[in-house]
Structure formats: C-alpha cells, structure tokens
C-alpha cells in the first residue's frame, strides 16, 4: 500500500487517541488514550523509515516503545498512590492546580 495509506491510518489512530484523552474521566482511561497516540506515532515512524529507505526511523521507534513502557509503569504507580490518598481515580477530582 502506499505511504499515504499508512499515514492516514496513523492519523486516524492519533485522533481517536486524542479523543480518548480529552473525554475519558478515569485517569487510567486517559493513559490508554495516550497509548493509542503513541502507537500512531510509531506506525508513522516505521512507515517513513520503510518508504524512504532509512533505518533510523525504526531505531527511533525502539526508543519510543521503551520510553513509553517506563512512562506507563510509573504513571500507573502514581495513579495507585493517588488512590491511596484521595480515594478517587476520577481525573475531574484532581484539580489542585486550579487557578
């Protein structure tokens, strides 16, 4: 398939992920949306790497996957910690930054 097809696929996935991040109330749900967005980015990177003949795109993908894993681990740990303290996982209740 053409590069454009892959890029379109990745764009759709990205926007679905964005929709999830914006609308979900539960913090874990937001993290899942972020996962989708990162996934889309990875597809993008690999597609470009394949079609332009440069392997560094795939190397970059390796990096992003690793970093995402670390981020998810710690993010979920934070969610659990917040649960212990605040007894809630609903993101709307975590508004200490309110100006």
């Amino acid at each position, binding site marked *: 398939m053409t590069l454009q097809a892959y890029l379109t696929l990745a764009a759709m996935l990205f926007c679905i992920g964005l929709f999830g*991040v*914006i609308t979900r109330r539960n913090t874990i749900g*937001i993290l899942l949306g972020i996962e989708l967005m990162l996934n889309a980015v990875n597809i993008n990177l690999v597609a470009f790497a394949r079609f332009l003949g440069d392997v560094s795109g795939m190397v970059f993908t390796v990096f992003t996957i690793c970093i995402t894993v670390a981020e998810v681990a710690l993010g979920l740990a934070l969610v659990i910690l917040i649960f212990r303290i605040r007894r809630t996982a609903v993101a709307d209740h975590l508004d*200490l930054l*309110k*100006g």
Partner: protein
Amino acid sequence: MAVSGFLALWAWLAPGLAFLILSLVVPLRRSGKPAAWLSIVVSLAALVAAVVAAWHARVPDVARRMLWEWIPVEDGVLTSVGVLVTAEATLMLILVALVSFLVQVYSLGYLADEPPASLGRYYTYQSLFTFSMMGLVLAPNFVQLFICWELVGLCSYLLIGYWYQRPEAARAAVKAFWITKAGDVFFLIGIVMLWSRTGTFDFAELFELVQGGGEALAGLGLVTFFIYLGAAGKSAQFPFHVWLPDAMEGPTPVSALIHAATMVTAGVYLLFRTAFLFEQTPDVLAAVGWIGAFTALLAATLACVQSDIKRVLAYSTVSQLGYMMAAIGAGFAGAGFLHLLTHGVFKALLFLAAGAVIHAVGTNDIHAMGGLARRMPQTFIVFLVGTLSLAGIPLFAGFFSKEEILSAAWAGGLTVPFGMLVLAAFLTAFYMFRVVFIAFLGAPAVASAGHGGHGEAHAHDAPAIMALPLWILAALAMGIGIWFSIAHPEAEFVPPAWLTPLAVGVAVAGIAFAWLVYGLRAISGDRLFERFWWIGEAAMERFWLDDLFALVYRRVILGASRSIGWVDRYIVDGILNVLSAWTLTAGDRLRRIQTGQAQDYVYGVALGVLLLMVWMRWPK
C-alpha cells in the same frame, strides 16, 4: 575699559560664590554670625570692585561686552551669558553694592536677636539677592535679564517671608510673588515676540537693528507694552502697586534694600536699558508716562493716611517709582535714571532710620511715638536729611533729580502728568513732614510701650553697628546734593525759568501745611479728613484695589485650580481606575481557564496545534 569688564564680572560673581558657600556648607550657615561676616566681607569686596569698575568705565556711550555662549542651536548660538558694562550700568552696580553692603552691616545689629540658623538663612538670601540683582544690571541680553529678574523676585519672596511663622508675612510674600508674576508672564511673552521678529535677544544686536531701521520693527508696540507690563509689576505701577505696602511685613533692612533701592527699581532700569526700543513706540511711552504720573499721585494720597511708618515709606516708594516712570515716558530716560540713583540713597536711609526707630520703640505706629527727637537725636537728624531729600529741598540729593523729572515731563509735552507730578510733590512734602511732626517732634504719646521693644520711654539711639550705615547714607545724600548744586551734570534740555521756583515752592508749601496741621495743630487733621472725605475714605480702603485682587485670586485663580483638580481626580484618574478595574475583572474571568484538570489543558494544546496547522497551511 577692559578692566571694567573684569571688575564688573568679579563684583557680580563674588556674592554668587558667597551664596553657594553658604547654601552648601550647612554648618557655616547654621553658625549665624560667621555666615553674616562672610556675606558682608564679600559684599564689601564687590563694592570696591564696582567703584573701581565705574571709574574705569566713566566714559559715556561706550559699552564693554564679555559674552560666553550658552545655548547652542543648529547654526550658531541661541543666547549667551555675560556682562554689558556701560557707565550707567556701573553706577547702578555701585548703588546695588553699596546699599547691599550697608544693609547687611545694619542687619547684624537689627537681627541680633535672631537664632543663628535663621540669621545664616537671611545672609544666604542676601548674597543670592546681590548676585541676582547685579546679574540683572549687567545683563547683555533679555534672557539673562529675565532669569535674574525671576531670581530677584524669588529673593524678594524669601526675604519678605523671612519670618514665615507669621501668617501675614507668608501671605504678603505670596501676594508679592503672584502680582509680579502676572507682569512677568507678559514680559516673557514680549521677549519671545521680540525674538521671533528679530531673531536675537542681545541688547547690542537689537540696538544695531533699531539704528538700521526696517520692517522687522513693525508691530513693536505690543512687544514694548508687554515688556512694560513686566516692569510695571516689578516697579509697582498702578494697578500692580498693591504688593509693595504688604511687603513691609519683611524685616526693615530688607525693605530698605529690596523695596526701596534695588529690586523695585529693576523695572525702571529695564526701561532705561531698552529705551532705544521704546523710542520706536511713542504711544507706549506716553502710556508709561501717564501711568507713572498717576501712580505718583495715587500713592502720595494713600501715604497721607497711613499710621504705620513703614507703610508711609512704602507708598512713598511707589510714588517715587511713578516719578521715574513718568520721566521715561516723557522720553528722557536719563532723568529717571538719575532719580533712581538718588532715591535709592535717601530712601534706603529713611527705611534704615525707621528701622532704628522701630527697633528702639517696638512699634510701627507713628501715633504711638512722639518726641523721639529728644530721645534719639542722631536718628532724628538722619531721618530729617532723608526727608528733606525726598521733599526736594535744594542742597539735598533729591532736589536736582526731582526737578529734572518735572522739566522732563514739561519738555516731553505731557502737561496733565506734569500737573499730577507737581501735586504729588506737594503731597510728598506734606506726608513726610506729617511723620516728622507726629513721631519725632511733639509730645510723647500716652500709649504704652510696644511689645518686644524698649518702649517709648526708654527709646535710645541705635547701636553703632546700625548707626554707621545711617551716617554714611546721610553723608552721601548731602554730599550728592551739594555736588549737584555746584557742578550738576549736563542736562539734555534747559528747564523753563519758572520751574525751579515752582518745585521748591511746592515743597516748602507742603512742609508748611504739615506744620500747620500737625505741628501747630492750627488746622485740625480730622476736619481736613472730613472735608476731603471722598478721597480720605477711599484712601483708607486703599481704593479697594487689594480687595479686587483678592477677589480675582480667590474666585478666578483658585476656582480654576479647583475645577482642574476635579478634572484630574475624576476624569483622568477615573479613566485610569476604570481601565484597571477592567483589567482586574478580565484577569478574574480569564483565570477560569485554569480549571486544574489536565484534560482541559490537553484540550488547549490540541486546539493550539490545530490552529497552527491551519495557519501554516492557509493558502496565501
């Protein structure tokens, strides 16, 4: 002639140096007596320099100029500072230096009871005044003259209000400042108008311009009239004369120096210096003459009903200033200038003598005095010398200059002003000898002693430090009078034969009348007052001029200030306050964007990215 320039410069700058030292070196000023001695010594040095400069510059109609460029503009210089030394300028310089020196010596005795810090302040102001007045006299152009003019006005304010804790003194100082300022505004306008027409401020250049004639001089009448208004304010011409009697709230030496001999004569000197301009506008000159003569007569009538000895002298000064202006208005500025010099000497003498009386008796009211001639013989003698000079009796200084003015008025064709001046001469002799008869001769008053003084019963002659200036001035008055009688300067005209007897006769008649009323009590003063009640009453109210000025001040000026203040508070500040309130409200509303919820921020980021993409890709 070159030496005169440098000497004049030194005479001018030395008091300025004294002022700087006294104002900056605070411990010296606070110490009182040492500050006084510094000022006195410097003014003596200035006097010596002035005398030597005058000797070197005695050739008439030759001017020595020394200029330093001051304000540079595109092509050339806008104005300079420096000195313009002529024979007459050096004579005026001597007058200023002499009277300043004598007054400062006198003040050491008169103000002996003042706290040292106040005394230091007094002498600082005195030095500043001497510096400013000399700068005015020697000014080579209008700019320097105006600056020194304002400085002199400032010193007048500071010295009138020397005892600033007294509300009358503070009010009088402000009044003097306001009224002279009104004249100064017109003066400044006149200067600028002159510059816009001719492109120069310099006297010498203007003189050349006038000699050459030309179209640049069209419309000069308005300019000279405005300049005259400035002089009218400073020299207390009608209707601006109201500040001078109130200025007597200041210490008597200040009155002698500033409001008799020097500052008030600055207007006369200005007109004398710029006479070549005024010659081009005869209408303005005629107005000057008429107003001058009217002022002389008006002030003379006012002086007849005053009980305060200083106020009598103040009105007398106004009257004599009117004389000088009348001479200038007649076209003979030299006569006016001569009277300026002689008047400076004997009026300062009269004021200082009055000061000695006040110092001894403790009151200004002549009706509380009496028989002082017996108790204070020396003061009586010098006062009499001054009075005879003022009345215009031959052998005394004032006679010759007064007669010159009368002849000038006659020769200039101003007949009605001439009549006014003659009548004023009669009144002058009358009111001065009224004071002599009431205060010095006659029985002592029954009234009790004044506060602060020794009381009439203990009146005695002044101490040496005050008496010495008195004797010097008296000797000078007599000396000048005798010298003029023997070898009087060339007059520009020959007076008619009947003029001299008329002048002397009028003066003698005035003295005789005063003797009848106040000496012999043959004619009742009260009956006289009733006969002339329409003038007398008005004179007591000072012709309601003070009230008029006060009304204008309170209603117009303060009213304008109040309304402008209202505009400032409610409109200008109001706009700012509204703007700031809007800003605060807007900030308050905007902070609701910060919901504290991360998803909303993501929202914002996504929106931003979208907008960025749209903007980048928008077809151009």
